[in-house]
C-alpha cells in the first residue's frame, strides 16, 4: 500500500490544527505548531507504517507539543477576532454564545484536564485511548473528566444566574473568556 505525505496532510490537517487551537486558543500559534508537527512527521516518514499510524502519531505529537508550547510561552489564552462568533440571527445567538462561552471555560481548565476534555469531546477518544496518549492512568483520565465536567457545569450555572440578575444582558466579562 502506498501513502504519500500530501495525503497525510490533507486527511489530518483539521485534527492537528483544531487540537492546537482548542488547547492554545491562539490561531496563529496553533497554525505554526501544526505546521511544525507535520514537518516533524515528514522527517520521520520512514517510520510511519500506514494512514492510521500517521493519524495517531500526529495526534500524540500535537498534544505533547501543545502542552510544551503552553509551558514555554506561559501566555494567557487570549480571545482573537477569529474566536468572536459571527453575527447571527436572533434565534441562533444563544447557541453561538454558549459554544464560545464553553470554549473559553475549557481553555481556563488546568492543562492536563484541558487536553483530556479536548481529546474526549473533539476527538471522541475513550478514556483508555486518552490515557495511552497522555501516558496517564485511566483512573486519572476519568477523574479529570469528572471534575472538569462538574467545574464547567458549575461555572455555566453561575454565569447563567449572573445573566438573569443583569436582566438578561450578557455580562461584559464574558466577552473576554
Amino acid at each position, binding site marked *: *500500500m*502506498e*501513502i*504519500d*505525505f*500530501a495525503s497525510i*496532510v*490533507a486527511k489530518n*490537517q*483539521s*485534527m492537528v*490544527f*483544531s487540537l492546537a*487551537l*482548542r488547547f492554545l486558543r491562539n490561531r496563529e500559534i496553533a*497554525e505554526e505548531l*501544526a*505546521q511544525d508537527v*507535520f*514537518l516533524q512527521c*515528514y*522527517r520521520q*516518514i*520512514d517510520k*510511519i*507504517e*500506514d*494512514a492510521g*499510524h500517521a493519524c495517531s502519531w500526529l495526534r500524540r505529537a500535537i498534544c505533547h507539543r501543545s502542552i510544551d508550547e503552553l509551558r514555554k510561552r506561559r501566555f494567557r489564552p487570549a480571545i482573537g477576532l477569529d474566536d468572536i462568533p459571527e453575527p447571527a440571527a436572533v434565534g441562533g445567538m444563544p447557541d453561538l454564545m*454558549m*459554544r*464560545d462561552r*464553553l*470554549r473559553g471555560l*475549557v481553555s481556563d481548565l488546568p492543562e492536563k484536564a484541558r487536553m483530556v*476534555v*479536548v481529546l474526549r*469531546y*473533539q476527538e*471522541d477518544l475513550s478514556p483508555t485511548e486518552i490515557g495511552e496518549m497522555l501516558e496517564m492512568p485511566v483512573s486519572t483520565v476519568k477523574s479529570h473528566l469528572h471534575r472538569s*465536567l462538574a467545574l*464547567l*457545569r458549575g461555572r*455555566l450555572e453561575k454565569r447563567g444566574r449572573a445573566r438573569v440578575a443583569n436582566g438578561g444582558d450578557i455580562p461584559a466579562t464574558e466577552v473576554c473568556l
Partner: protein
Amino acid sequence: MNENLEDVLRESLRREAPPADFAAKVLAKAGAEAPRATLSVVAGNSAKKPWQRRSFTLALAATLAAVAIVPAVVLDYQHKQEEARGLKAKQDLLTALAITRDQLQQAREKVRRTTRIIQ
C-alpha cells in the same frame, strides 16, 4: 444535564478547518527541506523498505554512470565522424590535384607541340 453538557461540549469543540493555504505551506516547507526526497513513502511492509532503498541507490548510481559515460561516447562518435569527413576531404583534394596535374600536363604538351610547329 450531564448528557446535555457533553453534547454541547462536542458541538463546541468540533474540529475546525485550518486556513486554506495550510497544506500548501506544509508541503512547500517539506519540499524546501529535502528537495531530492520524494514526498511519497511506501508503507505497510517495513521489510521491503531496505530493498527499495537499495534499488533506489542502484538506480541513482546507474543514472550517474550513464550521465558520465554518455557524453564520452557521444564525443568519441563526433570525433570519428570528423576524422572520416577529414579523410574524405583529403581524398577529394588529392583527386582534384591529380585531375589538375593531368590537365596541366596536357596543356604543357599542347604548348610544346605548338612551339615546335612554329619553329
